[in-house]
């Protein structure tokens, strides 16, 4: 079955469900958080405005996006469970195509959220007058890395949401992953790599340095973490292969 047609059908099925609402609400809260954090900054601090924004959003994402993804994905999968729709769909549509369409649909929503974050950073930078040039490379890197983490989580939660009729399971998994994302900053780096939501921070183009004596924060760009990126990409590919295969073998 044509992938584009399957994706269009996913959006058609989403009528009246307003999946975008949760994404819009989370994006709005994150934008307000950023604006609030910049309100009292002086010129020297605003010079680091872009880096500050990228760092802040990456940290927020590790806590908020797993929860948002859990809500989004469970709502997308719940419509199939509620009316026992899989029994009819499996006689008309290849199950793998349905799995892919749901994943792409979630991916588009998540790309929109990360895209909105970048638009917010640029807009706030314009309004507040960030004095440094726009870090185009870091912005592209940020978009790719944050989307990669979100896709991994969406895939993991989609597998749970399609497998279990009770949507409390993927929702709880989203909440737990968000909580782990919050705690991951305190874990040693080796342990961090085992927590999917920690990759929002691990893959972020900007890291922070807290000078305890001077009580100042400085942000700096890091080299591209190629190993972490490859690790997460490999995990995504393996999870996709496993999850899709399981879904295709499923009896309804």
């Amino acid at each position: 079955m044509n992938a584009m047609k399957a994706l269009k059908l996913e959006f058609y099925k989403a009528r009246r469900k307003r999946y975008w609402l949760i994404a819009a609400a989370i994006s709005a809260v994150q934008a307000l958080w950023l604006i609030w954090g910049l309100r009292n900054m002086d010129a020297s601090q605003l010079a680091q405005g872009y880096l500050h924004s990228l760092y802040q959003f990456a940290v927020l994402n590790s806590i908020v996006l797993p929860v948002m993804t859990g809500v989004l994905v469970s709502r997308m999968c719940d419509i199939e469970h509620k009316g026992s729709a899989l029994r009819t769909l499996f006689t008309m549509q290849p199950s793998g195509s349905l799995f892919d369409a749901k994943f792409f649909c979630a991916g588009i929503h998540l790309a929109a959220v990360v895209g909105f974050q970048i638009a917010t950073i640029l807009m706030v930078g314009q309004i507040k007058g960030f004095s440094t040039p726009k870090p185009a490379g870091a912005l592209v890197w940020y978009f790719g890395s944050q989307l990669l983490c979100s896709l991994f989580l969406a895939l993991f939660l989609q597998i749970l949401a399609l497998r279990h009729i009770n949507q409390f399971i993927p929702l709880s998994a989203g909440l737990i992953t968000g909580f782990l994302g919050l705690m991951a900053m305190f874990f040693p780096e080796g342990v961090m790599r085992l927590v999917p939501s920690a990759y929002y921070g691990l893959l972020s183009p900007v890291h922070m340095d807290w000078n305890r004596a001077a009580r100042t924060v400085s942000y700096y760009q890091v080299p591209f973490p190629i190993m972490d990126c490859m690790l997460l990409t490999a995990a995504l590919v393996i999870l996709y292969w496993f999850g899709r295969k399981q879904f295709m073998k499923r009896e309804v």
Partner: protein
Amino acid sequence: MDYCITTENLTKRYGQEIPVNHIHLAVPAGAVYGFLGPNGAGKTTTMKMLLGLVHPTEGSISVLGQNVNEKNRLSILRKVGSLIESPSYYGHLTARENLEIVRSLRNLPKGEIDEALDAVRLTGTGNKQAAKFSLGMKQRLGIAAALMGRPKLMILDEPTNGLDPAGIQEMRKLIKSLPAQYGITVMVSSHLLSEIDQIADYVGIIRKGELVFQDTLAALHAKSNCRLALRTSNNEGAAALLPKAKHAEGWLILPQLTDEKAAAASLLLAQKGIGIVRMEVREKSLEDIFLEMTGTEAAL
């Protein structure tokens, strides 16, 4: 005879449990085939296997003349409509939008939606959300979805479940009309013997995963053949004279006899001085047959 569905040794195992055990189904084309059995006999699992929703452990399935495998399953099912267990629908979408999904997946022309809604008399409620439908309307929506694209075969699993008496009547009428009106072969399951008796031409009876009967409904009725029950002044003596007679609670049961043979038997007994106290015709009801075959309480 042409068959729409045939299976060879169709089996499903879940560990030690065998819900479907080496079934040889043969559903003739252009007929209503009633698939009868008590709850838990394996009807739904069998139908799900026919549609590829459950994977057989063993055996083969042929639908519309083609052996079904994972590669050709969906192309074969394009000509098959189905309703398994309960109707499938998206509650937040209208009836029309639900059918639009089916139309799009089956690449059908737009007009099919109106035709399907019309066939199940949902035309006036096409723009109402499916969640607000009664169970009967949801069931009809499920049938409308199954009818989309004029399939050659419809597989309906207990389609009258949960319907009120009027809805049941209406559904039966619709199912019965499908072969003549649209040329559709129907395989319909039920645990209600009376239901199958009213709508089916052929019947398959499944018990604990095994097909215990498969033939025309007329052949099932023929199993309810008449027997002659006698009570005589000397049942032992009468039994010695009539070797085919069997004792049953003070009666002698003779197999179905022609009028001439029945007369000869009574004359023989009279000649030997055995008086006939009672003589009556006994007929096994369809329920008795079903009960014998399924070993469970017959559902009327």
